[in-house]
C-alpha cells in the first residue's frame, strides 16, 4: 500500500516537473511580457510592504512584531504564493474548468487530472513575488547559514498550503457549480490574512485562520519555524501543511466522482 502510494507520488511529481518546465519555456519565450510582469509584480509587492515600513517607522512595533519579523512573514508569504502561481498557475481557474466541464481533455490522459489542471498554466508575475521574498529575507538579517534549511522548509510549507487551499476552495464547484467568485475570494482572503502577524487576532479569528482560511499554515507556523527553530515548530509546520494537502487531494478526488462532462469537442496540442 505504502509502496504503491510512493510510486504514484513519484510518478506524479516527475510528470508535474515536466509540465512545469514546458510551461516555463513557453513563458520565457515571450521575453518582453515576461519581464514586464515580473518587474511590475516586484514593484507592486514592495509598495504594498511599504505600509509596514511606514507603521514601524512611526510606532516601532505592532503587537511585538518589528520590521525584520514582518520582512520574514511577508517574505514567506510572497515566496510561497509566487511559487504556487509559477508551478501551479492553473489553480486560479480550476473552478471554472470544473463548472464548464473543461476537465474532459485531462480525463483522457493516463496521468493525474489534478496535476494536469494545476500545471496547465504558469503565471510569470509569480517570479516577481519570489524575488521580493528573497530580497526581504536578505534585508531582514534573520537568515543565517544555519537557518537556511528552516527557511526553505517554511517556504515549501507556504507553497504547499497555498496550492492545497486553492484546491479546496475551487473544488467547491464540484458540489455547487458556478463558484468562481467565492472560490477566488476564499483563496485571496487566505493570502490577505497571511500577510498580517497573528498577534493581531483574537482566539476566535485564529481558529478560522487555521481551518477555513488556512493563513496560519501558510505563514504563521513557517515563520515561527524560521524565527524560533525547534523540532516542535518543524513538526507543526510540516504536519499542518501535509495534512491540509492530503485533505485537499482527497476532497478533489471525491469531487471528481461527481464531475459531469462538458460534452465539448476540443483538440489539445
Amino acid at each position, binding site marked *: 500500500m505504502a509502496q504503491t502510494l510512493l510510486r504514484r507520488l513519484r510518478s506524479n511529481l516527475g510528470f508535474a516537473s515536466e509540465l512545469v518546465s514546458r510551461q516555463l519555456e513557453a513563458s520565457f519565450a515571450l521575453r518582453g511580457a515576461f519581464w514586464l510582469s515580473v518587474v511590475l509584480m516586484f*514593484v507592486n509587492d514592495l509598495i504594498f510592504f511599504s505600509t509596514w515600513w*511606514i507603521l514601524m517607522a512611526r510606532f516601532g512595533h505592532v503587537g511585538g512584531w518589528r520590521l525584520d519579523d514582518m520582512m520574514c512573514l511577508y517574505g514567506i508569504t510572497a515566496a510561497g504564493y509566487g511559487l504556487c502561481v509559477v508551478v501551479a498557475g492553473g489553480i486560479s481557474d480550476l473552478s471554472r474548468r470544473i463548472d464548464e466541464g473543461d476537465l474532459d481533455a485531462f480525463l483522457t490522459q493516463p496521468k493525474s487530472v489534478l496535476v494536469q489542471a494545476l500545471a496547465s498554466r504558469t503565471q510569470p508575475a509569480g517570479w516577481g513575488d519570489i524575488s521580493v521574498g528573497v530580497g526581504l529575507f536578505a534585508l531582514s538579517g534573520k537568515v543565517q547559514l544555519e537557518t537556511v534549511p528552516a527557511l526553505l522548509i517554511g517556504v515549501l510549507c507556504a507553497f504547499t498550503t497555498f496550492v492545497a487551499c486553492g484546491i479546496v476552495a475551487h473544488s467547491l464547484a464540484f458540489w455547487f457549480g458556478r463558484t468562481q467568485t467565492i472560490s477566488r475570494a476564499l483563496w485571496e482572503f487566505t493570502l490577505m490574512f497571511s500577510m498580517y502577524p497573528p498577534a493581531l487576532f483574537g482566539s476566535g*479569528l485564529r481558529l478560522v485562520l487555521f481551518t477555513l482560511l488556512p493563513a496560519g499554515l501558510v505563514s504563521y507556523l513557517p515563520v515561527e519555524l524560521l524565527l524560533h527553530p525547534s523540532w516542535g515548530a518543524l513538526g507543526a509546520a510540516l504536519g499542518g501543511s501535509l495534512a491540509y494537502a492530503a485533505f485537499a487531494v482527497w476532497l478533489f478526488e471525491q469531487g471528481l466522482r461527481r464531475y459531469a462532462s462538458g460534452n465539448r469537442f476540443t483538440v489539445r496540442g
Partner: protein
Amino acid sequence: MSGAYGKYLAIARAAFWQRLSERAALIGRIAFYCLILLVFSCVWRTIFSAPDAPGADGEQAAQRAGDYVWYLALTEWIMLSQPTLYLDIESDVRTGDIAYQLARPLSYVGGKLAEGIGDLLLRMLTLAPFGLLFARLFSGQWADGRGLALAALVGVAAALLLLLCYAAIGLCAFWLHDCTPVYLVWQKLLFVLGGLMVPLSIYPGWLQTLARRLPFASMLYGPGQLVSSPDAGRALELLLELGAWLVLAALLVLGLERRGRRVLELAGG
C-alpha cells in the same frame, strides 16, 4: 440639449440596473470591505493598546484607533466603488468593437463614462450602509454625522475624478494594447501617496510633504480626514481642488480619445 444629456442618462440608468443584477460581484466587494476593516481595526487596536504607543492612554487611544478605522472605511468606500472602466475600454480597442461604437450618434468616451457613472453610483449606494455598519462594529464608536456628510460629499467628487483617470488609462490601449501595467502603477501610487490604508499624517515627514503636493492626497486622504476632523472650509477647499483636477482630467480624456481615433483611422479598427 436635454436630448443629448438624455442619451447619457439612459446609459447610466441601464448600467445601474444591470450591475444590480450581478450580485456575486457586489457580495464579493462587500466581503472584502468587511475583512479589510476587520484586519485594520485589529492593527490599530494592537498599536494603540501597546503601553509604549506614542500619546496613547486608555480612552484616548481607543478613540484614535476608532478614528483610523473610520478613515479607512471612507477611503476604501471610494476605492471599492470604482468600476473597472479601463478594462472595458481596453477590451473595446483590442477586439475592434470600438469601430462599431464610434458609428453611434454619441461620444464613445461619453457613453463609457455614463456607463461607469451608473456603475459607480450603484456601488457607492450599496457599499455605504455596509461601510457604516462595519466601521461602527469594528471601531466601537460612531463617527461625527457632520464629518461623515462632508466626507461623503467630497468622496463622491473624488470617485468621479478617479473614474475619469481610469477612462484615461483605458484610452492608452490605442497605443499600448495592454493597459494593466499603467493601471497597476497608478493604483499603487494612489495606495501609497493617497494614503489608502494609513493616513498621511503618520508618514515620515519627507514622504508626507511629497504626498501632499500630489493630486493623490486630495482623492483619498482629503475626504478620509474629514470624517474625524469635520471642517466645512477644508471640504470646500478640497471640492475646488478636485474640481480643478476634474476639468484637467476631462480635457486629458477628450484629447486622448481624439488622438486615439486618429490612430484607429490610420491603422484600421
